């Protein structure tokens, strides 16, 4: 079976064609670098994504601090993780790299702050 992918590993967005037998890759073309093959392999087995959102900050010079995950999570857990992040409110100040939830839902990644918010 032939399957087409758009690689999301970098802005080039290579169109990758994969010849599949079950979940085994028999042939791959269109990727300009090895990251493309790694991406497609992951997509076939278990698609993984990072997400970015914000947490509430109490007493900060901004109401929100932006956060992302320290690594990728299964795509079908995105909304579960969003629900966990939505429960969090942290006191100011917070700084880039601060962990607001460690090992979120046991997925092995942390929710980390990406923006400094100082106390108002």
């Amino acid at each position, binding site marked *: 079976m032939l399957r087409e992918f758009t690689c999301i590993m970098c802005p080039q*967005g290579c169109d990758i064609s994969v010849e599949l037998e079950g979940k085994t890759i028999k042939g791959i073309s269109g990727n300009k670098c090895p990251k493309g093959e790694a991406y497609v392999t992951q997509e076939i087995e278990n698609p993984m994504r990072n997400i*970015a959102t914000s947490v509430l900050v109490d007493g900060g010079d901004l109401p929100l601090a932006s956060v992302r995950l320290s690594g990728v999570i299964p795509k079908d857990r995105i909304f579960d993780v969003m629900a966990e992040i939505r429960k969090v409110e942290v006191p100011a100040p917070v700084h880039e790299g601060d962990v607001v939830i460690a090992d979120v839902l046991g997925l092995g990644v942390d929710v980390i702050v990406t923006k400094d918010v100082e106390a108002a």
Partner: protein
Amino acid sequence: MKHVDAIIVGGGPAGLAAAIELRRKGIDDILILEREKKPGGILRQCIHDGFGLTRFGETLSGPEYAARFVREAESLEIPCLTDTTVLEITPDRHVFASSSEHGMMEFEAGAIILAMGCRERTRGAISIPGTRPAGVYTAGVAQAYINLKNKMVGRRVIILGSGDIGMIMARRMTLEGAEVLGVFEVQPYASGLPRNVEQCLNDYNIPLSLSHTVTDIRGTDRLESVVISEVDDHMQPIPGTEKEYECDTLVLSVGLIPENELTWMAGAEKDPGTSGPAVDENYQTTVPGIFAAGNVLHVHDLVDFVSLEAEALADSAARFITQGSLPESKLAVRGGELVGGLTPSRISGESDVTVSFRVRRPLRDCTVEIRQGETVLKRRKMAKALPAEMIQIKLAADKLNTTDDLEVTVSC
């Protein structure tokens, strides 16, 4: 009136990178003027990741990318006046600015770096008919409400335009619990990057409809519905294809325009191809000592290229400040019919040039050729070229002559 060697208008990614690089080149007397309360520009609200792969070799969120430059500028003690609006720039490089804290200020600058970025096209710019209810936002405004002010803009959302910010907001609003009914694009292809179609729309089952546009906006106080029509090959709505969508929010991602009011006040000429100022290979406008880089010059696809361009600008601005002038650039740079947004607009033929442009429509198996007279300076074959992606080609000085104009063509 105070003299400053280099005044930088705008403390976003372009302005910060230019300031840091100028200092590294030995220009001590620098001042950044920034309209917002903090430096960092639009990156402060771009909380998604994917920035920095070219510049830093890793993927960062917008705030993290900006913070690298903000911290560097702070450690170099480069002064930045925030909450300060530049009101006028004169051709003899006087800068008038004002802030609540300092009132009116006048500076005389050795060189001026224009780094004001770009702004979004609005409903008015594309003349959508209908009523004028609340609930119609540009994508960047919706992004600022959600990511900076913690205000959700709506629950049932239609997005017009498949620019990158529009697609990123489709995902962002979905994550925040809104229902994004669809993204509609007037062109027959997506205007943003393919990776964003994949990770922002396909991942969340948000449909993308090409060759469609909004032909009516309905509602009195709040938006109640929009009418979407198919368009023909000339982007004209096709009667009979109208479909009404109930929604409370319409997000527009219909293009960006370089923000150049100050540039024109200073007397700089416009490049009709980019809507930004005409510059030479030194990023110098037609007014000596006034330079431009980043989205104020031409709208970029990636911030990494904004930073790199501003750093290249700093090199020539530093030479201007120390030498008092730069070699005149008399040769024109011209693009073929498939070439859009071409910059620079002229060169001297004496120094290295980075040529930037976009193709006007999606192309496969095309060849980019850059010529001076009969001499082909560069030929690049491309399996795929998209309007969403900026193409940059570097030309070394020793390959250039000083008599022939530069021609950039794309053929299939």
